[in-house]
Structure formats: C-alpha cells, structure tokens
C-alpha cells in the first residue's frame, strides 16, 4: 500500500546553513510515528516542509500518493492533512464552539451560502457533539481567552481532527503543560481514530514513546534511524543523540 505521507530526498538550506540534507521519510496508513532529536536536529523544519509552510530546495513531498511539493498549506489541508501548532494558535476573539464551527465549515464547499449567516449552515449541533466527544462540552460557550493553557491545547487537537484528516501532524502537543494536563492530552491522542496516521514531534521522550508505534531519530538535519518504539537499538540511538557518545555501531544497525 502506498504511504499516506512521503517525503523523498528533502534538502533545505536557510540563510546559507544546511538545515536538512537528503532526508526521506514515509508514514503508512494508521501509523503513529514520533520524531525525536535534540534542539537543532531539524524536526521543526521537516515539519514545516511536510505541512507546506516551507518549500524545500530539493526533494518532493507526496500526500496520499499525490505530489504536493508545490502546494500551499490550505491546499494540503483540504487534501487530508491536519496539524497542531507548538504555540497555541486559536481564534482568540471567538468562543470554543465558534472555533469548532469554523473548523467544520472548512470542509464544506466554498461557494455555497458564503454570504448567508454561518448559523444557517447547521454546524452548531455537530460542533457540540464533537466538543462533547472530546470532553470540552461544558466549555462550549467560553471565549477562547478564558480557557486554561491545557484546555487550549485540547481545543487545538479538536480543531485539527474536525476535518477528519488522513494524517495529523502534532507539533509538541505537551509543550508547557503540567503532568496532569500532559496525561490528558496523551489520552486524547490515544483516542484518535486508529486509521488516522499521526506524526508527532515531542521533546518529552516518555510521551513520544508511549504514543507511537515507530520512532524516527534525527540529529543535525538528517535521520539517524527509524525503528519500533520498543527496539533496544532505537533506545540506544535516542540516548546517543541526546546525551552524545559513540554510537556509530547502533547507527549502522538501525539505519534504513
């Protein structure tokens, strides 16, 4: 079966510095992949290339078998790509429900009813249902600025899944959260539909390993190895890139 998301031979140079060099990655349907690596490894840059924020100088990106290298963010989103942001990024002047209604309306045809009231699109009920399902039902009418940081991250996740994406990219969903809030976000991610592929960047290694089937280890702009989350060779590699040391041997074992 063809991969849901595939990046081939990606190279990115920013301001004369090589950030990514000849990097390739494949995400299968339903796969949960964590991308780990120290600061400066190029995780965020790769994320930006995958989502369309950044266009690579070399290489191609394919989404559900289609070449999307030159597509912008919104076009990729319409083709089945969802994402969350590292810094919460919500429509702050609106209520929780209005945020979700906008997320749901995004997948409706554009021309229909564009100048009729949003309320006439009948999206408030699906929005309520979605919020109930994700445990934010009682915060429905709260303005976004009144939400706690943890709740905002949860809402981010709800917005990202509203369009039922084929692949969901999560950019450090637990950054800045308390242990309780982190546990809650983990629970939500685990509850995502199994057929949704997930790519997760996470600094919290325990969380990354707990949520994923496979782990890709990055350092210095390239992939050091990919393997199962419980593979000892991967654990050794993770240890190596974070703590340093000589791990060329492990490299060779898991490369490819």
């Amino acid at each position, binding site marked *: 079966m063809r991969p849901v998301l595939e990046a081939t031979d990606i190279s990115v140079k920013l301001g004369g510095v090589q950030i990514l060099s000849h990097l390739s990655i494949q995400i299968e349907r339903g796969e949960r992949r964590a991308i780990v690596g120290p600061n400066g490894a190029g995780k965020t840059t790769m994320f930006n290339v995958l*989502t369309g*924020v950044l266009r690579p100088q070399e290489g191609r990106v394919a989404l559900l078998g289609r070449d999307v290298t030159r597509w*912008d*963010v*919104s*076009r990729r*989103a*319409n083709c089945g790509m*969802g*994402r969350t*942001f590292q810094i919460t*990024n*919500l*429509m*702050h*002047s*609106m*209520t929780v*429900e*209005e945020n979700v*209604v*906008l*997320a749901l*309306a*995004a*997948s409706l045809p554009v021309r229909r*009813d*564009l*100048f*009729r*009231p*949003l*309320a*006439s*699109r009948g999206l*408030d009920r699906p929005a309520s249902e979605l919020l109930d399902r994700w445990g934010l039902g009682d915060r*429905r*009418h709260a*303005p976004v600025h009144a939400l706690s940081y943890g709740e905002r991250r949860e809402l981010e996740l709800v*917005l*990202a899944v*509203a*369009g039922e994406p084929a692949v969901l990219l999560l950019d450090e969903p637990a950054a800045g959260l308390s242990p309780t809030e982190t546990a809650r976000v983990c629970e939500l991610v685990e509850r995502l539909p199994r057929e949704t592929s997930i790519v997760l960047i996470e600094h919290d290694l325990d969380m990354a390993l707990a949520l994923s089937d496979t782990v890709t280890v990055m350092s210095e702009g390239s992939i050091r190895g990919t393997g199962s989350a419980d593979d000892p060779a991967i654990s050794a590699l993770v240890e190596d890139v974070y703590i340093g040391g000589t791990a060329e041997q492990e490299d060779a074992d898991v490369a490819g």
Partner: protein
Amino acid sequence: MLRRHGPGRALVIGLALAGVAVVLIRNGSSTYSLSVWSLAVVGAGLGMSLSLLVTYAGLPSLAQAAFYGTGGYAVGILAVKQGQDNLWLGLLLAAAVSGVLALVLGLVSLRTRGIYFQIITLSFTAMIWGLAVKWRELTGGDDGLVGILSPSIAPFKGYLVTPQTVFTVSALSLILICLVVRMVRNSAFGHVLVGIRDSESRMAALGYRTTAYRLGAFVISGVLAAIPGALLTYQLQFVSPAQLNFVVSIQALLMVVIGAGTLLGPAVAGIGVIWLQEILQRHTDHWLLVLGVIYIIVAMVNPPMLAQRLRQRWVVREPAMESAR
C-alpha cells in the same frame, strides 16, 4: 456570534429609525444644513466601507481614498467626456472601476502584513493622486473636472439636484452600505475573515485559502467606497485630486477607530467628524488645530475600550453568550 440573523428585531427597528431620521432631516433642515448633512452621510459611507476591512479583516488599509476618489472621477469623466447623465449607470461604473482597482492592489498588497501593507496602500493612493494630477486630458489635472451636471434619477422623476433629493439618495446609499457590512459581518464569509484576522496560520491549516478571503474583503470594501465617492462628485458637481488625497484615507481610518466596537459606530463617527469639521471651520481659522487636539483626546480616551466598559456596566450580559439554538 452564531446568532440567527433572520429579519431580526434589531434590523427592523434600525431601519425604521433610519427612515424616520432621513424624513426628519430632509423636511426639517435649512438648505445649508441639508448640504452639510449630505456631505456627512457620504463621509460616513466612506468610514463604513473601510470598517469592513479594518474591523473584520484586520487590514488597516490607507488606500480607501484611492477607491473613493476613483469613484468620483469615474462619474465625473462619464458626465463630462461622455455626456452620460444617468445616476445608476454612474454608480455602476464607479463601483466597477474601483472594484477592478481594488483587485489589482489587493493582489499586490495582501502578500504583505502590518506596516508594509500600510506603506503599499499609502503609496498606491499617492500614485493614483499623481495620475489624477498629471493626466490632464482625462482628469483636468490640478483644476479637476468642473461642470458635472446633476444626473437623472430615472426611472424616478427629476434630477439629483435639489438639496432634498441629494440628501435622500446619499442617506439611502449609506443605509445600503451599512446593510452590506452587516450582511458580511453575519455571514460565513465574515466569520472566516475574523478567524483569519485572529490566526491566519490556523485558518490556513484548516484549509481556508486565506489570501482569497482577504482579497474578497478588499474588493468589497473598494466597491463600497466608490459609491459615496461618486455621490460626493455629483453633490459638488466637481471632482479634484483633493478627493484622492491620502488625508482622506486617514480621515476614514479615524472614523473607524473612533467608532470601533459596534457595527454602526464608524457611520456615526463619520457623521460626527464631518459636522465637527464644518462647525469649526465656520467659527475659527485655526479649525485644523482644534480638530487635531480633539482627535488626540478621542484617541486617548480609546472609544472601543470605553464602549466595552459602558456595556459591561449597563447592559445585562446575555446568558451563555449568544449562540444559536
């Protein structure tokens, strides 16, 4: 914000009040004050057209004078060079020309944000102003176009000539502009605009073509500005580069800032600004100085904040926001 906006009680009451106000002013004012009222409602129309862009799309454009003035020149040229004197045809042409201009400027300027967006829109206004000054054969240069005859308002009887008719048509155009802005605000389109204003990257990640939405708002706003621009030219029977001056853009922005926070605020502020200007001009030679001081005080008071504070104090909060059921 997801209110059901059917005919709506507020809309009916608002329209009724506007109708009463138009009749009262039309029948109860001297010729002089009626002419000031006509200028005021046209100015308010300009403010409302910009409020669509600033309030809902978060785009503090400085190009509004360009669309306003282009609307004026469009009907001026149509009347003087083509001898065409139908009001509706004039308004249609004004709207179309400004709309095309807004499309072109939008395509260029909406790639930028913040101060860069303002510099581009300001430069564009200066460019159009320069064009009006230099292209003498078409625009009359510095002298402008004079002798623009009052247009016919066919199929209605007569011409846009008596102060009463001029005021009535101008006031109706303002009401129409307010209705369009209201419709945009309540529509799915308007909600998407606000979403983009709040977080463009999130809206793009949800699949919205954010630049297309901004461009749509920019064109609607340009078209709306052309209507009062054309009516001003018909009122004065004259159009000159002054109508394209960037100061007009700033004045429009001022109306929006003073009236921010409510739908009709910019219209009320627009009427107030024009009347204030008129009254000061009659009483002192230093009216610009006085006006400047008043504007500074108003800006310091921060009307949106004041309006919000008053609302919190005096208006009982609606239960559970105002969601649709």
